[in-house]
């Protein structure tokens, strides 16, 4: 099973560093999860894509009017930031 996914790529996309041991152990766990999920493909379903319309909430989506409501003040919004400068949140360097 583990050859169906690349644990290193998954770690990269999640921006986490994994040691060799962690990679092995997580690969193993993920394989077991995938096996369980794979059991679903044994179900004989013939539904069209539009009919597959399942959602955990059996509720219709409600929309809100486009009217401005009071939100956080600038000071409130930034109060928990570990670092800020000139009114902006500052985080470690990140670029595409």
């Amino acid at each position, binding site marked *: 099973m583990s050859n169906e996914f690349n644990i290193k790529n998954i770690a990269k996309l999640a921006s986490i560093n994994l040691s060799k041991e962690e990679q092995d152990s997580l690969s193993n766990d993920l394989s077991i999860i995938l096996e369980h999920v794979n059991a679903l493909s044994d179900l004989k379903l013939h539904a069209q894509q539009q009919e597959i319309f399942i*959602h955990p909430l059996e*509720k219709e989506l409600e929309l*809100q009017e*486009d009217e401005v409501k009071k939100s*956080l003040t600038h000071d409130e919004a930034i109060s928990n930031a570990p670092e800020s400068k000139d009114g*902006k*949140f500052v*985080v470690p360097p*990140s*670029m595409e």
Partner: protein
Amino acid sequence: MSLKPTIGIETHIELNTNTKMFCRCAVVDTDEPNISLCPTCIGLPGALPVPNKKAIQFITLLALSTGCEITSKGMFHRKNYFYPDLPKNYQISQFDLPVGLNGELEIVIDENKDYIQIERVHMEEDTGKSSHSGSGRIESATSTALDFNRSGVPLVEIVTKPVISSSKQAVAYIEELRQLSIDLNISEGRLEKGNLRFDANISVAPEDSTELGTKVEIKNMNSLRSLERAIDYEIQRQTKALEEGVEIVQETRHWDENKEITSTMRSKEGSADYRYFSDPDLPNMFLSEEFIKGVETLMPLLPKAQREELMTTGLSLSQSNILSKSEEWIKKLYVKIFDQTKDSVASYNWITGELQGQMRKANIEVLPEWFNEDYLSEIIELIKSDKISFTSAKIILTEILTTDTTPSKVAEQKNLFQENDSEKISEMISQIIKENKDIVERIKSGEDKLVGFLVGQLMKQSNGSVNPGMAKELLLKELED
């Protein structure tokens, strides 16, 4: 080996709603950072998104106007990625059930129409803005600063099928889409403000190949000039590589405006890397027939129909296209002037040429209060009835753009009415002939060009008030006798 390029374009249109997509924070246009935020748009745990009704109306309107099938049973998905400009670590977007599917947009290049097939129109939210500090190159930045005012602003993404074959077509497509969004009143359509941003997927393959080549995506352009140049550059780069036997790598590239080249940004994520799954915070979205019918009532006259209507007045396709993409007051002015003069070409030329030209030159952004639209019709009629010359008409226009007066008054004050009385003109001609005997002799001996000189003398002496066509005709007749 003959190669052909294939291009697909993804456009993000920022909707001009009052509030954001999933919270009721105001959409603001300011440099002051982080002043319109709430727990939802900065992704604090436990905050729940509720979609903006107007944004859903707007996207439905856009989808209907491009002839898309509307997905009445739709849903929102989470597109997962880790950049600090989206603090939730996912963007709410739509995956396999977008609002609109399989549409088409008519574009115009010169006197030809073309049709660009649209694959999908879906709803999503914008990210915050990041800026990188540190010295020198972006790679050596020491920190990233974030402003989340834009985070959560409603964005529509409209994706074409890979059917575009040149940069010219791509530009015409964006111009059409921009005008459409302005006419639908869903966006301000201001490219310089980033209201429309586009990515181009470009590939090159042998002419006779049924398969597309490896696609390269150029991200985040917001000017037509960048789009055109980036596409041309990329087609050239890929063509050269293929001719030299170098393999094209599927990747995302960045257009460098200053160097005028594209360069590698990152290797391209596949959609599997985004791990789309339906957003458990947002129940499925049903667009009822009643809702869709309500949106249909908001449909204005679309650019395509505007062109057709303008062509019935006698304008060509390209002229109609230019007018349909002009500001609203210009379109209205044309209709009014045409109704009065029934002269489509003169109305078009005066409005798009002389009027706009003079306004630009004099830095006039809006017509002055006293400027009655009938004045332009009056000018056109005065020229047609030979009462003023074209040159005088331009002088009159300059005057009425800056002074509260009328064309006839200006013509009278500045003595610009043409002399059409043949007897009076003949008298003046006799005088000119008398004063220029040597020139007349030279004309008679074959120097035809000098006729122009005599007409010029006549215009000068009459202060330009003589009808030049008539003057030339009478002068030639006089010389023959």
